[in-house]
């Protein structure tokens, strides 16, 4: 017990705290909740995420506008205002909404199918060793393959049109989501996992009632990535194949205008994609996060 520690401080001054009188106090009644200090207006405004993000968006738009004007190459990079004008026109005359609807329809189908498949794969992977190996092998093999590589197969199996598009969308959504989901599942703390099994939960119920909520942050990140890559792939795929000109989507709109050098329309189409991205992020995913991980206090 008396080993001396090699400590820097001198040990001969032997500080001792003073002895103070004791006291007892009657129990204070519980006060009303504190009044939360009212912040100055600009600080209060700044607390709103939409405002901060709005400012960021305006800044980005300004940078674009100014950059484009400096560049002065409207055929390559039209100013923001020109793109917005084109967007406005083509929204009013119904071209963009129609194209967007076509895209969204395929997108949602492909996304949903990808999500379901990702669940199936990861559920298999968490329950069996061979499922685990299969997932890891398939993911590392297929994930790096560009969608065009699957084109011949898609043609053979699904024919032209939506079927093939959905197929390549699944390819885009499935692997990153499965990877993230599986990572989330493996990171669930052991006591939580044991509690779930202790409830008598097995198989899919175990996955859905324990693993999924516990891994939700990772899953949401995977869903976001999958969503973004579904868009990327859809736009790219609509360029390459599948769109018979009658019912093309946004990708087709972009491609056509790009071919005809209507660069302002190209950017109008891209702005549509960006708007969808912002909308889905700030409404759908934000709400999902608010109602789950934020409410539960599992992420900051």
């Amino acid at each position, binding site marked *: 017990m008396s080993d001396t520690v090699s400590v820097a401080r001198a040990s001969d001054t032997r500080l001792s705290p003073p002895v103070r009188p004791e006291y007892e106090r009657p129990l204070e009644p519980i006060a009303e909740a504190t009044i939360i200090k009212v912040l100055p207006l600009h600080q209060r405004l700044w607390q709103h995420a939409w405002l901060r993000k709005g400012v960021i968006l305006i800044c980005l738009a300004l940078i674009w506008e100014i950059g484009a004007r400096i560049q002065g190459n409207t055929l390559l990079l039209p100013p923001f205002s020109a793109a917005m004008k084109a967007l406005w026109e083509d929204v009013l005359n119904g071209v963009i909404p129609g194209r967007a609807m076509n895209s969204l329809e395929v997108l949602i189908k492909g996304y949903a199918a990808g999500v379901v498949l990702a669940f199936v794969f990861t559920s298999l992977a968490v329950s069996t060793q061979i499922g685990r190996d299969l997932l890891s092998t398939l993911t590392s093999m297929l994930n790096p393959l560009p969608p065009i590589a699957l084109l011949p197969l898609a043609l053979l199996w699904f024919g032209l049109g939506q079927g093939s598009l959905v197929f390549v969308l699944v390819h885009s959504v499935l692997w990153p989501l499965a990877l993230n989901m599986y990572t989330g599942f493996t990171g669930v703390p052991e006591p*939580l996992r044991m509690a779930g099994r202790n409830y008598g939960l097995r198989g899919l119920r175990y996955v859905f009632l324990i693993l999924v909520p516990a891994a939700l942050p990772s899953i949401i990140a995977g869903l976001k990535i999958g969503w973004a890559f579904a868009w990327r792939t859809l736009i790219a795929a609509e360029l390459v194949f599948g769109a018979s000109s009658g019912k093309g989507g946004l990708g087709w709109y972009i491609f056509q205008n790009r071919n005809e050098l209507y660069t302002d329309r190209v950017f109008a189409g891209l702005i549509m994609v960006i708007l969808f991205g912002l909308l889905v992020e700030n409404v759908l995913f934000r709400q999902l996060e608010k109602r789950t991980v934020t409410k539960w206090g599992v992420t900051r």
Partner: protein
Amino acid sequence: MTAPSRHVGGTNGFPLSAPLLSVENVTLEYQVPGRVVRATQNVSFDVWEADRFILLGASGCGKSTLLKAVGGFIAPREGRILLDGHPVHGPGPDRVVVFQEFDQLPPWKTVRENVAFPARVSGHLGRKEAAERAEHFIEKVGLTRFADAYPNTLSGGMKQRVAIARALAMEPRVLLMDEPFAALDALTRRKMQEELLALWEEVRFTLLFVTHSIEEALVVGNRIALLSPHPGRMRAEINSHEWDLTSGGSPAFQAAANRIHGLLFEEAGADGASHE
């Protein structure tokens, strides 16, 4: 049959029927990259129906591991664990564990849901009954005011109490508790002990209880298994059915406590400062 006094067994000699839970020569090991950590070695004990069986031992002696093995989470490296004469295969709601860790509560459920949900899924109850049962046990652990809070907004001791309520609400045949009261202050702890024993009085479940407090062991248990320090080996089994919540400070109680202390720590004390 009139209600018998609590600790008197049916037979007073060695019983003829079989124990509910038999741990037979169980060695438990963890495989960590590069080496094998032995948690317990050749541990045997029998738990009879309605026993309040205590595992007592030093920190790191394998109490939690043993409890998890009985819970079905860890397979013994050697020996076997029998429940009703059948080897234990995997976990199940008949053996509910209160773990030592604070993060055993699903953070996506409120306190109320955390208690009601397992009672429902483990198959016993409908939604409404489960909710009522949850209400009841949340009140017992003194968390009624926090019934709608999420676990991440609770203090350590409160989390532990939710886990206790959850386990009680599941009404398992065997209740496995791993230092459930460690994070509680004296009064709350006392209350929890009272509640646990009152419930036992009523339902007569079987309890396997890990603690590091000798007093608690004497008060809560009717039989105490003493484990040696790492790796855990059987040291002794001691009867403690004569003590209850009221027997706190008596000299006999003190003597029993001292005897246990001696059994547990005499070797450890002998090799002194090295601690291991």
